[in-house]
């Protein structure tokens, strides 16, 4: 069973009005269980829209989205996925531990079970002694790790992430990438990951989905063959650079074909 299946899906905002935006058009994408798939493309090409459709935070104008073999709506009700955004989005008034417990609380878990799981999650993200702290007492990278812990607290099979490391410095970012891979391997979580960084997409992913704007669509899906276990050495491997070049070429395509020269600036080359 596929973790995510997007079939012939379009999302048109403000249909029929002067402000109509064809955010994504006729997109087909299948993500298998255990896969790590990145979405990359210039700003405005519909990456966040596609992720929100999978999360059932948006209804498709056309087409079908299914998650874990269910409709996206049912999957949301069953909390089959966790989500993390660029801003950690932790609640200031809750301790770190209580933030992680939030999705469990909403599911009606009892107190001791919640606390136990929160502690496990804190160990998973290597911040075990921070349960009683408040989010605003933590660094940006720590907050993002807590947000990941929160997203995974209910052990969802699928993790949806929208530029989660976009606000972090380069060092922290690379560390977080390693951590994310370790966490997902330990919990065998499927990930759909939106990013602007080509090396980040390549380092993390089994497949990189390259998208182009106006209208938003998938131009190419690039397989990354770097093996299952990725280390810091991977970043120096020849295959790593080959894949980076392949993704960059595909992104040039989005540039040359349809896109105004300004649109490509949304993708970073680092």
């Amino acid at each position, binding site marked *: 069973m596929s973790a995510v299946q997007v079939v012939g899906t379009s999302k048109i905002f403000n249909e029929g009005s002067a402000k109509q935006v064809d955010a994504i058009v006729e997109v087909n994408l299948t993500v298998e269980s255990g896969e790590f798939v990145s979405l990359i493309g210039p700003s405005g090409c519909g990456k966040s829209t596609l992720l929100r459709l999978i999360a059932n935070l948006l209804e498709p104008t056309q087409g079908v989205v299914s998650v874990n073999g269910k409709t996206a709506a049912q999957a949301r009700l069953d909390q089959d996925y966790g989500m993390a955004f660029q801003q950690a989005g932790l*609640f*200031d008034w809750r*301790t770190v531990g209580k933030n992680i417990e939030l*999705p469990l609380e*909403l599911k009606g878990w009892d107190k001791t079970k919640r606390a136990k799981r929160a502690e496990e999650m804190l160990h998973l993200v290597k911040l075990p002694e921070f349960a009683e702290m408040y989010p605003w007492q933590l660094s940006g990278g720590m907050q993002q790790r807590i947000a990941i812990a929160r997203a995974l607290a209910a052990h969802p099979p699928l993790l949806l992430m929208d530029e989660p490391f976009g606000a972090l410095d380069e060092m922290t970012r690379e560390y977080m990438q390693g951590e994310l891979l370790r966490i997902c391997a330990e919990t065998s979580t499927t990930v759909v990951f939106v990013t602007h960084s080509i090396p980040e997409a390549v380092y993390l992913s089994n497949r990189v989905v390259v998208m182009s704007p106006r209208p938003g669509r998938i131009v190419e899906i690039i397989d990354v063959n770097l093996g299952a276990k990725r280390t810091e050495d991977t970043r120096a491997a020849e295959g790593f650079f080959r894949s980076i070049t392949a993704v960059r070429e595909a992104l040039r395509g989005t540039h040359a074909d349809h896109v105004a020269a300004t649109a490509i600036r949304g993708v970073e080359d680092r």
Partner: protein
Amino acid sequence: MTLVGRIAYRTSMFVLAIAAIIGAWELYKLIGPQGGGKFFGVSILPRANNNAMPHVWDMFSRFGRPEVRGSDRKIWVVVLSGAWFSLRLSFVGFLLGSTVGVGLAVLMTRFRIVQRGLLPYLVMSQTVPLIALAPLVVSWGGKLEIGSFVWPRWLSASILGMFLAFFPIAVGTLRGLASAPSAAMELMESYAASWKQTLFKLRFPAAVPFMVPAFKLAASGAVVGVVVAEISTGLKGGIGRLIIEYAREATGDPAKVFTAVFGAAALGLTMSGIVAVSDLLLMRNRPKETTT
């Protein structure tokens, strides 16, 4: 700063402010015109003589003397019990106002249409002069009979306190409930949280910084409402009634009315003090940008 530190800081600022006011009062008595200042026949400066502006020490020493000559009831006892009476009424008004205000805010958040229909009327309600409303509420209350429930006269005063208290709470809470960031709302949606769960786990906590100042306004509003109601309906037992009674004796005993005024001020301060303490408790774990 620690909680204790902040309380100490606020208290010392308060004492300083009081000292400044006393200083200004006595300074004006020294340099101000004894017969008041007139400008083209309109008096704009208050008279600085001892009848209009008694010395601060005269006012304070008045507290220690009996209410009326020959009585053994000291005036501070009378003022204190009057303030206590009005405090209880204000508190009832404040609680009623909080319930109504928060309830309306939740209703307006839940149903856009209620907000559009109701909000203009809420704003308009605050333009009705309290003095005009007071006798009406008393007479309506008198006619009200629900089973064996008899409308006590003091409840009318509390209702007027509520009338001034509910508005800032409704408006502040409404803004606060709407202040939850859209990313957080989206997060709750991704958890398939119900409206009620989102209300209690996200919207209300996010509203606290907006609600605290609203409750402070409401606390003083409740006191004003109750005191004005006591004055305009002549309700016995409270500080409002003492103010009008003592004001009549102002020529013979000018310091007397000030004891009641101080009682009213103490009443207002007690009410806002209660809210201020709950503010410190509610906000103690929030991020602190300022260190006051």
